[in-house]
C-alpha cells in the first residue's frame, strides 16, 4: 500500500512541481543586486578602511610620536621616526604605513592616546606601481584633512561605546 502510494506520488511529480513553484515565486521577487558603481552597500561608521592622520582644529597635527601604534601593530606595517621640534615638542619626522602589510585590524587606532591615527571609511584606492601602497606622513595627513568631517562624525557617533 505504502509502496503504491509512493509510486503514485513520484509519478505525479508532486515534489518537482513544488520545486518549480518555489523558483517561480523567486522569479517575481524584487532583486537584491547592488549595481556597484552607481549604488553601494551601506557602510558602518566603524568600518576600517584607508588610514589617515588627524589634526586639531587649530591645524596642529595630533601625533606626539609615542610609537604605541608602531608597537601594537601585529603586521609591523607602521614605521615611525621622531625628533624634537624647534618649539620643544616631540613630533614625528617619518610616519609610514605599508598598506600591503596592513591587516586593517584597527589596533593602531585603539592604541592611539590622542586619536591621531584612524582608519577611515574610504576604500576606493589602489596602486599601479610597486611602492604605490606605501603611504608616508604627508599622504596620510592630506587624507585626514580631506575626510576630517566624516572622521569626526563617525567618532562622535561611536563615542558612547568607547
Amino acid at each position: 500500500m505504502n509502496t503504491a502510494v509512493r509510486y503514485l506520488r513520484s509519478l505525479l511529480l508532486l515534489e518537482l512541481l513544488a520545486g518549480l513553484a518555489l523558483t517561480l515565486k523567486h522569479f517575481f521577487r524584487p532583486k537584491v543586486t547592488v549595481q556597484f558603481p552607481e549604488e553601494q552597500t551601506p557602510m558602518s561608521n566603524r568600518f576600517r578602511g584607508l588610514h589617515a592622520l588627524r589634526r586639531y582644529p587649530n591645524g596642529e597635527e595630533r601625533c606626539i610620536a609615542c610609537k604605541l601604534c608602531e608597537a601594537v601593530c601585529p603586521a609591523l606595517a607602521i614605521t615611525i621616526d621622531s625628533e624634537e621640534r624647534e618649539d620643544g615638542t616631540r613630533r614625528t619626522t617619518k610616519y609610514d604605513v605599508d598598506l600591503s602589510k596592513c591587516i586593517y585590524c584597527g589596533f593602531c587606532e585603539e592604541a592611539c592616546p590622542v586619536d591621531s591615527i584612524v582608519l577611515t571609511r574610504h576604500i576606493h584606492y589602489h596602486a599601479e606601481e610597486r611602492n604605490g601602497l606605501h603611504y608616508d606622513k604627508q599622504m596620510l595627513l592630506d587624507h585626514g584633512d580631506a575626510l576630517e568631517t566624516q572622521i569626526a562624525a563617525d567618532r562622535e557617533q561611536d563615542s558612547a561605546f568607547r
Partner: protein
Amino acid sequence: MDSLIEIFLGMWQWLPVAAQTVLVILAQIIAITIPLMLGVAYFTYAERRVIGSMQVRIGPNRVGYFGLLQPIADGVKLFFKEIVVPVKANPLLFYLAPVLTIAPALAAWAVVPFQPGWVVADINLGLLYVLAITSMGVYGVIIAGWASNSRYAFLGAMRSAAQIISYEIAMGFALISVLVAAGSINLTDIVMAQQGSAAHWFVLPLLPIFVVYFISAVAETNRAPFDVAEGESEIVAGFHVEYSGMTFAVFFLAEYANMILICTLTSLLFLGGWLSPFEGIPGLEALFSWVPGIVWLFTKILMMGFMYLWFRATFPRYRYDQIMRLGWKVFIPITIVWLVLVAAAVVAELPWWFD
C-alpha cells in the same frame, strides 16, 4: 519603382531554371537560419536573465539597453578567440565534429511548418525525418569526444551518447502516440488534426505523453537536470572541453538550436502549433482573428523555452544511473501503456480528439 521591379523580373526570367531553383532554396535557407541564429543568441540572453531572476539577481544588464547587446558581445569575443587543437588530437575529426553537430540541428527545420503553407519541404514523413535527422546529432558528440584525445571529453561523449540513445526510444514512443492520434506523420496535418478549440489540442488527452516527451526532450538536448554530459562539477565541460573560440561557439549554437527545435516540435505536436488558443470561444475568437498564426506559434515556443530555463534554475543534476533507470524502467513502460490506450481510443473513435 515599377521599372525596377520589371528589370528585376526580367533578370529573374533570364536565369536558367536550375539557377532559379538553387536561388529559391538558398533564400529559404537564409530565411530560416538567420532568425534561428538570432533566436539562439537571445535565448542565451534570456537564459541568463531568467535564471538570474530566479536566483533573485538581475543578470546581464550592462551592454546596451537592458544588456540586449550582451549576446552580440559574447559572439564577437568568441569569434576572435584562438582555436586550440590539442596535441595528438585528430585534426580532421576535431574540426568535423562541430559541423556534424550543428548540421542536423539546422537541417531538421526544413520540415517545420510555421503557418499553413509556410514550410520549406512539406513532406509526408515530416516527423520521421525530424527523428532521423536529430538522431544524427549524437555522431557529432561522440566524434568530438573521441577526436579531442582527452579523458574528460571522452567520458562526456560516452555519457551523452548513452543518454541520447536511451531517451530516443521513450521519445519515439511518445511521438508514435501523437501520430496515432493525429493519423498522419505530416507535421501540418498533425497540427490541423488539433483544430476546433484549445481543448482539442493533444496536450489534454495525451498529458502523460506530453510530460514524458518534454522530459525526454530535455534529456535529449543534454540540458539540466540531465546535463551529465557537460557536468561542470564532474567532468569540466564534457565532450567540448578541448574546444575553444568558434568551434566551441558552434557546439553552443547547436545545443540552443536543438532546444528551440524541441520547443517548436512540442508546440506543433501538443499545443496546436499556429492555432489560436481562443478558437471555438464565441466573441474572443473574432476578437483575436486578426492575429497571424505564426504569432501564436512563437508564443508557444517562448513558453516551452521558458520551461527549459525554469527547469535549469530549479533542479539539481540527476545521478547517472538514475537517468538510465528513469529512461528505461519508467518512461518506456508508461509510453507503451499509453500508446495502447490511445490506439484503443482511436479505434473506438472517442470524440472529439480521436474521431
